[in-house]
């Protein structure tokens, strides 16, 4: 593999990891607060549709992004309502919302645009512009630094940078603020938080809303940054890979970044090569596609460092009287 290919693969790794990273951090915050969310996938899907549709109609990508975030938060609140307020089964609610958005986006896309459940392609200001870092062109030919700076770090859509900035931000929020401490406590022992006079329901709704915002950004990037427009089922399992990355990272932000980069790399390599020779053994592309899921199962099984979810996760909190 020559240097140019290598840089290209790393470049697409970064782009492919971006939606995963947003969604992974979204799930992480929600689950740290004790609300399981297997609906990451469709919040992204719904957001991707909103972003593309509204960006197309308004001609401005940022209005699209705002709409995506709004739509995603709305879906989060439906999940929150079912899981927190009505104390329903969080996983069943997640499954339901998965189908809801998968169906509704196509129905509405077909109704608005009549293009077989897709939005028209975006161009110009309706797409997310690239950001070229300063001096990228000048440094292009410098060995090592040049390809890395020009080919990988410079050029992606602004949301890529935002995604990676969200990692320290999430870490700070969870581990260095009072809100974060309470958030984590609510996922481990809600009764203690309640006794301290802090609203369990309020905290959980806050976490679910943040999850919605991040999924909204993931979806918006998918339809306006990574590709130019919405197509049916365009998330293609990314929400579940993000879920896998979250478990793989054991619900920790920095490790989550590592996990999504690994999974992004796998996807980039699988996109670029059909079969890969590793030490003389041909690895089929399907094996690479399945690898994130297999790794997650292995981690869940506790063969390589056990992943233990937040203790109160998945259970609705019932106040004692």
């Amino acid at each position, binding site marked *: 593999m020559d240097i140019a290919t290598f840089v290209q693969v790393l470049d697409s790794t970064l782009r492919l990891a971006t939606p995963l990273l947003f969604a992974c951090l979204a799930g992480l915050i929600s689950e740290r607060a004790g609300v399981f969310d*297997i609906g990451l996938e469709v919040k992204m899907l719904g957001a991707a549709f909103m972003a593309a549709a509204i960006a197309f109609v308004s001609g401005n990508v940022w209005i699209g992004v705002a709409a995506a975030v709004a739509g995603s938060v709305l879906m989060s609140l439906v999940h929150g309502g*079912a*899981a927190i307020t*009505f*104390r*329903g*089964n*969080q*996983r*069943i*609610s997640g*499954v*339901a*919302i*998965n*189908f*809801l958005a*998968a*169906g*509704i986006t*196509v*129905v*509405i896309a*077909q*109704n608005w645009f*009549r293009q077989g*459940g897709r939005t028209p392609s975006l161009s110009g200001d309706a797409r997310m512009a690239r950001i070229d870092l300063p001096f990228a062109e000048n440094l292009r030919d410098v060995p090592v630094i040049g390809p890395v700076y020009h080919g990988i770090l410079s050029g992606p859509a602004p949301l890529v940078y935002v995604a990676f900035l969200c990692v320290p931000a999430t870490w700070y929020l969870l581990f260095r603020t009072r809100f974060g401490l309470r958030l984590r406590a609510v996922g481990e022992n809600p009764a203690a938080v309640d006794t301290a006079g802090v609203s369990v329901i309020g905290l959980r709704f806050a976490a679910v809303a943040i999850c919605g915002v991040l999924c909204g950004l993931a979806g918006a990037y998918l339809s306006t940054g990574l590709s130019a427009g919405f197509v049916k089922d365009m998330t293609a*399992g990314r929400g*579940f890979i993000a*879920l*896998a990355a979250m*478990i793989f990272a054991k619900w920790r932000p920095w490790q989550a970044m590592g996990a999504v980069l690994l999974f992004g790399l796998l996807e980039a390599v699988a996109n670029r090569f059909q079969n890969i020779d590793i030490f003389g053994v041909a690895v*089929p592309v*399907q*094996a690479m*596609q*399945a690898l994130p*899921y*297999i790794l*997650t*199962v292995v981690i*869940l*099984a*506790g063969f390589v460092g056990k992943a233990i*979810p937040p203790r109160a996760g998945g259970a609705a909190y019932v106040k004692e009287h």
Partner: protein
Amino acid sequence: MSGNGRIPNWADVTLVPLVSVLLAFILSGILIWAIGESPWAAVKLMVEGAFGSSYGWGYTLYYATNFMFTGLAVAVAFQARLFNIGGEGQALLGGLGVALVCLYIPWPHWSLALLAACAGAAGFGALWALIPGYLQARRGSHIVITTIMFNFIAASLLGYVLVNVLRPQGSQDPSSPRFPAEVALPKLHEMLALVGIPFSRVPPVNISLLIAVGMCFAVWFLLWRTRLGYQIRAFGESEPAAEYAGISPARITIYVMLISGALAGLMAVNSVMGEQQRLVLNAVEGAGFIGIAVALMGRNHPFGVFLAAILFGFLYQGGAELALWTSIPRELIVVIQALVILFTGALDNMVRIPIARLFALRGAR
């Protein structure tokens, strides 16, 4: 969700699901109205398309057969409080089992092939559910996540097998060759012709329908008439109590997942052997997930699953007709299905609490 003494049992099994479905339909009606179509006309079209002719009935029953298998699979697991979302992957593997049986063994007669295909489908499906079951039982890995992961792994595995092993030489299409004509299952119209009832020849509904109905009885018998069934239900009601009574949680978890996976796998007999006559990439077409809605709607009871499967068969066939004659895309059915899962599964309390209040009011008078 038990321990709600205020609603009489009959209302719990009939009123709560009916009100939930009604709510789902009303919301879907509003959606249809919002996209500029007439909800009334849509309902009429769906009912006529699904029940108005033996052609419609045939497709309705074909889909219902799929959903009975996957619905039973989810329902059995739910009885033990296990949420098996892996029906999709288990059915995919079941399809692989069917294809191997039909392609590599020369069968003299379809009846023998059917028996072997059932064994292959159930065996492969059960095997695919066994791993998450084992990991839950012995390693405490949450079954919801592992079964989701196994759905994706199954899709990759099937893709690999179809492209690299089963695909005939020179074919671009990732699918197996056609099964030999000897293993074609008798269709419903052939069976009904024996007793002199005319039926449309087009729909793919076939003898698997009888197997599905038989499975509804078998699951009922298993759950309410055998020792294992008692243990499964006891485990589902209260794990500590079951353990105290000498029931091994690990053993029950593994058994339940084996049964559940086998039922999901059996679906492939209907779709792969009965309809497609070859193995294709998306042989399951989401039926594994619809099983969740069917089980929730049917209150995890085999008879309820039977009725709910027919309801969803109607939605599927009716939805196909809608897509054909109006501008409403097929995905509307996915929305209805989602709303049914949401109301009967997650927002159960939202429907239940007002009904409980009504009964409390009536009792107070």
